[in-house]
């Protein structure tokens, strides 16, 4: 049952990701990326990462992709004029190198074998629950958490400064 769900969700994720790239309309690309991200949230659920799956949907689909669509429609970039490549063979070369890269990664995964020191038996109870994650976030990972808030603050200021019209 879990295997069927895994293959179904990963097929959706990969198909949508391919359509993001090989598809001329930019708005459709953004919509297919949303599909891919939703499928990825399904994979997170299969990996017992419930909190991460929900946060992933809220942050990516709810915030980042809405921002992307907003910019696409604000700048009226609906159509990407195809067939105007200035570098010869850019498409073929890019796809060929990508396939080579994938072959390398697949080779590494297949040679990797079993995970050294992987614990046996079932998962601990409450694995991936919000309570456990929150406790870790405010004890072990307190410093990165605070640094993250500063990063977000700086990013917001930077976006405002960049977006301001030069006057």
């Amino acid at each position: 049952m879990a295997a069927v769900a895994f293959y179904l969700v990963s097929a959706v994720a990969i198909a949508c990701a391919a359509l993001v790239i090989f598809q001329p309309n930019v708005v459709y690309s953004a919509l297919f990326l949303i599909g891919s991200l939703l499928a990825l949230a399904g994979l997170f659920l299969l990996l017992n990462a419930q909190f991460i799956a929900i946060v992933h949907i809220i942050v990516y689909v709810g915030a980042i992709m809405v921002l992307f669509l907003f910019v696409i429609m604000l700048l009226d970039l609906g159509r990407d004029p195809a067939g105007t490549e200035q570098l010869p063979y850019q498409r073929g070369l890019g796809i060929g190198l990508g396939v080579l890269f994938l072959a390398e990664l697949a080779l590494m995964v297949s040679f990797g074998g079993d995970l050294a020191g992987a614990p046996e038996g079932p998962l601990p109870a409450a694995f991936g629950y919000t309570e456990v994650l929150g406790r870790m976030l405010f004890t072990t990972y307190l410093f990165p958490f605070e640094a993250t808030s500063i990063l977000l603050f700086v990013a917001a200021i930077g976006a405002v400064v960049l977006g301001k019209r030069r006057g």
Partner: protein
Amino acid sequence: MTVGLAHYLFVSAVLFSLGVVGVMVRRNAIIIFMSIELMLNAVNLTFVAFGRFLHTLDGQLFVFFVMVVAAAEAVVGLAIIISVFRLRESVDVD
């Protein structure tokens, strides 16, 4: 047949390669940005998969931080794209 770590790593490898191809093939800055998001998400998947099979939650917390960095990157990057568009009336990277 049971789904193991290698399956998840392979899906992640495919998604990452698709992101790489997108950055190399497309010239629209917004699509290049989406490809970068795709690559970040592929790496998130490896983090969660490794964490799941090592029975540790540190991977999930790393994904949390990667998401924050991705959000910040998207905000600043899109602001840069808007100012480039104002300057050149196009978002082609050529």
